Every structure is written in structure tokens, then in C-alpha cells.
């Protein structure tokens, strides 16, 4: 199952590291990630696709939410078939 998670984070050094480290230390996998500054330069938006089951996904979202540097976490979409290689087409790359 593909899931797309959107995380609004503080735009400061080290936050991407913390997010990816969270995935690593809890043994979750990132399939793709993109980061860009938002219209408000205080924030960046990260868009992460991950293949995780429901329980894992739930944990990922809660752990991201718990991160002090994340301001908002949204679960955007699920795609159930594997092999669909375009999990990211539903959002636009934020311009930086």
C-alpha cells in the first residue's frame, strides 16, 4: 500500500535529517521524499511516499506529529496497487 504524507515543518537546518532519521530508527521505508520552502518562508513542506501497512502508517503519522519541529501532518492519499509507479503525481512540487 502506498501512502502519501504531507508534513509542514519549521524551515531550519537539520529538520529533514530528523524526519529521515525517524524513519530509519523505527525501521520504516521512504519511497520518495520532496522538500520545499512554502510561501511563508518560516515553513517547509515535505511530501513523503511510503509503503507501510495501516498500523505502521498510523505510527509514522503519530511519530511525525510528535516531532517538535513539525507543525502539521496530513495523510493525503493511499494507493493500493503496487507497481503503480506514479504515487507522486497527485501533488505539485512546491516551488522554492
Amino acid at each position, binding site marked *: 500500500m502506498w501512502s502519501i504524507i504531507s508534513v509542514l515543518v519549521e524551515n531550519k537546518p537539520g529538520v529533514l535529517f530528523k524526519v529521515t*532519521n525517524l524513519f530509519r530508527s523505527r525501521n520504516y521505508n521512504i519511497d520518495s521524499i520532496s522538500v520545499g520552502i512554502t510561501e511563508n518562508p518560516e515553513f517547509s513542506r515535505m511530501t513523503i511516499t511510503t509503503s507501510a501497512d495501516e498500523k505502521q502508517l498510523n505510527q509514522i503519522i503519530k511519530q511525525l506529529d510528535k516531532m*517538535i519541529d*513539525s507543525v502539521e501532518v496530513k495523510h493525503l492519499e493511499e494507493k493500493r496497487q503496487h507497481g503503480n509507479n506514479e504515487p507522486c503525481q497527485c501533488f505539485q512540487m512546491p516551488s522554492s
Partner: protein
Amino acid sequence: MSGARSLMVALEKEGVELVFGLPGGANLPIYDELYKSNIRHILVRHEQSAAHMADGFGRVSRRPGVCFATSGPGATNIVTGIATAQADSAPMIAITGQVPSKMIGRDAFQESDIIGITNPIVKYAFQPMDAAEIPEVVKKAFYISSTGRPGPVLIDIPKDVQQNEAEMQFPNEVKIRGYHPWVDPDIREIERAIEMLLSSERPIILAGGGVIISGAFAELQSIAELLMIPVVTTFKGKGSFPENHPLSLGPIGMHGHAEANKMMVEADCVLAAGSRFSDRSVGTFEEFEKRLKIIHMDVDPAEIGKNQTTTVAVVGDIKASLRIMVKMLVQKAIKRGDNNPWLKKVNETKEYFRENLKLHPHPLGAAKVLRKLREVLPHQSIVTTEVGQHQMWASLFFDVIQPGTFFSSTGLGTMGWGFPAAIGAKAAKPSVPVLDIAGEGSFNMTENSLAVSVLDNLPVIVLLMNNFSLGMVAQWQRTFYDKRMIGIDLKNCPDYVKIAEAYGAQGIRAESIDEIGKAVQTALKSDVATVIDVPIDPQEDVLPFVAPGTPLKDMILPS
């Protein structure tokens, strides 16, 4: 004002009266300001111990303890202490010096990326790059460390930032937009929890470390007594409920009490308060949740559903949630009697194991030693432990009567934690006796804190259950590796009575139960640290035992 000066002012504003640490090149500006301030410095002999002292101070006082270390090796030496505090949700502020900001990234002398190294084991980390940020950083650090689920916060300050002058503003309050530690418990969920407890036939309360952290002892006891529900605890929650109470069954888990594991397995509904359902407590996750309806109360929303599927979840401070529950019970005039088959079974089981559980026959068997200790040690004393067999024996045979007086490295299982943590505890509460139930292997790791205990007038007692070996490892080799014993023999070296004396502390060898009682009484009257060396039987195992990866019902009993 310089960055270093503003750090001291900010710490004083947070009510910090003492810090544990050891200086070096990169934090000398901080130490120079410490020299001029009213804050007491406790000089350690290894930074790891500074972190454990701050941790012990924090757990007992429920305010962050503070430790200082220099950059590079000083900073890496506190890593174990930070990880230990994080694993047990202990409030702590670690302040490290860093190489000057212009040198960062150039592999400078004593540069280490301590922010990167500690990322997965801190609640948060700051690296102010401008002196003017320091007051706000300190305010935020204390706020984050002590609220919600407490934890360690690191402040890494480059040397030039310590030295630079700036216009300082000290905020009285801070807000962090991504951090919301106060969640009001959902009343409807608490109502559902009560209904579930009332409609179940075999309810049980599982009290975890969260009860101790939030100090919810009275609330927990009221609920247990109003509903007449037996109470088991996790190891971290040991002593959240008086262990001499008729409803107390003691800790569950790998080395839980037989009656606690047995009743946990037979329960049909559990009220888990401030527990994260660690593998050490529940055995196997799947087996645990199979027959159980779980009511989970926790301050950390990420704990809900992490290890166990729950039926009812109450997110919020444990004390607040339990208080609401007590209120509801009182309002609805709910009070249950003790005349039901479940409680009868609980009492019978408890009685059965208390009478029939075989204890080690050696004259200095662990149960005899620790029951003697309980007899002579005042109830308000604070007890810490090291890690190993002695720790699990403490869990089994040392009853905590006054809630919130027992502390151990339960999450990370850090050998060497108990002694410096005891010193930190003594600093937080000098009026009560503090005793570390220790194994000699663990004590050996941080015994140089004897210097601190003696020189800084923080006398604690170490009861050394000396089996001349890394006993817990030896037990696993006896049990799972066909007695192929390797790397466990400590060969009666060093002599701990002489070690104590070498530091100016008191060393006593106690070779009988009677001598142990007398030695503890001598130690209680002494104004220096006392090490009581008790030669126990290296062959004694910790039993009951639930082998790792097996369910609680498969508990191995002594034969």
C-alpha cells in the same frame, strides 16, 4: 552580557541550584561564569556519571537535572546518560561546549557532531549560533524537558557563542508551535473506561512509569479501592502502588512476580495507566492482547496503538485522567465490594505463591538479603538499582511501601546508572537515606563517583550483591547456552571494601543476614558513603523467568 553569563542567569531563573559536570577547552567560558554565579558545581570523574546524576536528580525532584560537558569526548561521554534518560522519560538538560562556530565542519580538535549523534535519543536539541538566542533556548529547553512526556534536552553551545556579547532578553514564557504537551483527557473515553471496567468479570490495573512521573499515587489507590481491582505494575511502575497493599500483586514481566504474571494472563480487561507495553513487561505482544480488552491511558498519543491494540484510549496526563475517573466514581457512588470470584482467585493465587514459591536455599539467598534490607531501611528512603540479577531480585523481593521511592534504569538497562543516580537523588532530597541495590559488575563501571559522594557530602549507601560475576549474563549462559560460560567471571577483583576506603568512604563486608542488618544501620548513621559488600552465591538464578519472546503464561518457576 556574554552568552555564557546569560546561560547562568537563565539557569538561575529556572531555579537551578546545582549542576553536575566536568570542564574542558570548549566550555571554559561557561565554567568561568559558573565560578561567578551562585550555582553549585559538582565535579564528577567521568561525564557519564554527571548525566546519570542529573537523571537521578530529575526523577526524584521531577524538575530537570542539569549536566555540563565539554565538546568532543566530553560530549560523547554523556551519550549513554542521555539515552538512559530518554528511555525512561526522565527530565534532564545536558549542556555541552562546542568548537567555535567557524570551526564547525572542519574536523577541528575535539569537534564531534553531538547534535547528529544524539538526534534519536533526545526529546529535543538546540545549537544556538547567536549569543542573543541563549535565554530563549534555555527557557524552551526546560519547558520541553519537563512537560508532557519528560525527556532529555541537549543544548550545544559553540565557544564563540559563549563568549560573544549581546543584548539579552529573558522571556517569562515561551510558545513552540509544533509542541502541545497539554491534552485534556476526553471525558467520554473515561466514562467508557469505567463502563468497561464495571462490566468485565476479571479486571486488573496495570500501573506504569507514568503514574510515578505524574505522581498519581493517591488517585491510583482510590480507583483500585473503589472498584476493588487488583493492581499489577510494570517494572518501571514498581512502587506506584504500595506493595504491602492487599490489592497489590507486584510487577509483571520477564522477572515479574509469579502471582502478577498469573493474574495478568487470566484477566479479561486491563486499565493500563502510563505504560508503553514494553516487551519486557508483556512477553509477546500478540498473546497479550488476544483475550484482553485494553484501556490505555498515556500522555503520549504516539504510545496508543504502538505495541498493543486498544479498546479505549485516554490521552492526557495520568494524574489528570485518573483524578477525573475518581471524581466520576465518587459522583456515581460506585463502590464495589470484595466478595467476588475473581478477587477470591487473586487472593488465593497470591497466598499460594507466597507460601509455596521455592526460594534459593543459600544462607545469603537474594530473598533473605533483600527482605532484611526492607526490615531495616526506613520506608521513605529512596532506592535505586544497577542492572542485572540484583535488579530483578530487587523487583521480586524488595517491597516498595511508600510510592515513588524506587528508581531503576528500566528502559535502557544501563549498568553503572544506579550509583551516580543515587547521588543525584541525594542531592535532590538530602533529608532521606538513599541506597543503591548494586551488582559489583555495574558498580565497577561508575564507582569513581565515590569521590563525588565523599567530597561533595552526598552520602549514599551501596548494597553490593557481590556474586563475583556478570550474574545475569551467567544465568542466560546457564539457561540458553548449555553452560558454556564465557566473559562473566570477575574473579573477586577489586576488593570493594578497600575501594571504598581508598576514596575515603566506609567499606563493610557483611557475611550473614544479621551482619547485613547491622551494616545498614551503621551506614544510616554515617555521614560518609558506605559500601556494604555482601558475598552472595554466584549460582543463584532469578526466578520466576519468562524467556524472551515467550508469553507470560509460559513463566518458568523455580523447581
